[in-house]
């Protein structure tokens, strides 16, 4: 450790001020226990936050999702055969390898950004 001598040269006022500012050490008296219990509470809240949010989100979204799922067959029935027939689709309209790889990379990037934001 480097000691700066300018810090060490004290005049009379310095000594008097030091004496005036000096105080007894503060007893812990359960202070650190209180802080640690607040920290532990925080850890638990952080751990529980995601699962609880996920559960609540699922509960809220469940009903509309079920309604949507039940509506899809009805929707498909009213779509004309010429539009819904996959047999007629040309091969070129299917996603290409580059598109699939690009999509996967995009998904990975989004997940990484999500994780960074969470951190």
């Amino acid at each position, binding site marked *: 450790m480097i000691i700066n001598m300018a810090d060490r040269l004290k005049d009379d006022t310095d000594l008097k*001020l030091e004496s*005036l500012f000096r105080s007894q050490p*503060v007893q812990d008296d359960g202070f650190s226990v209180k802080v*640690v219990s*607040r920290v532990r509470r925080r850890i638990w809240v952080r751990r529980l936050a995601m699962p609880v949010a996920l559960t609540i989100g699922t509960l809220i979204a469940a009903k509309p999702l079920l309604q949507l799922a039940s509506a899809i067959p009805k929707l498909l029935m009213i779509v004309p055969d010429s539009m819904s027939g996959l047999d007629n689709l040309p091969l070129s309209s299917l996603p290409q390898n580059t598109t699939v790889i690009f999509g996967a990379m995009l998904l990975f990037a989004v997940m990484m950004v999500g994780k960074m934001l969470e951190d």
Partner: protein
Amino acid sequence: MNSAVDETSDHELVAKVVAQQDATAFGELVRRHQSQIRNFLRKLTRDTVLADDLAQDAFLHAWNKLHTYAGKGTFIGWLLKVAYTTFLQSKRKSSRYNEILEEAGHDADARSSRQTEESDEISDLDKFLAVLTNDERAVMILSYACGLSHREIGDAADLPIGTVKSVIFRSKEKIRESFDIDDHKYG
């Protein structure tokens, strides 16, 4: 707390907290440094209850920000910086609160009733600190009460060393001009 933990250095404990989210290791850091942090905040706020509340908040901020402590400088210097930032944030909030109270016609002096009994020496200190600005007060407390070097004060108060030296010089001048420092009794 076992002796193995007692002998562990601050840096090792910090590494343990950051790597494993170890609340016990953090508790040891709190136990080691609570006295200095609480004394610093008690002198800054002149209110024991408020200072202890702020000290708890400061340690919680330290828990959240511990990964930003790069091991440069002493850990207590870094903790004092967190405590000083917590104090400034709370002061900003409370000044807004006092404005609202004044607007509502309340006497904002209610806090004085919370102040615990302090010795005559402390009231002398109050008078000295009253002539200083927030920054000057913090620098003087860090220097004379916490015994930090100019470099450590610079780190804690986010000031260049040159500024720290000039703040100390200016504060001493202010105290000399305002009081006959020899008239006061010293421990």
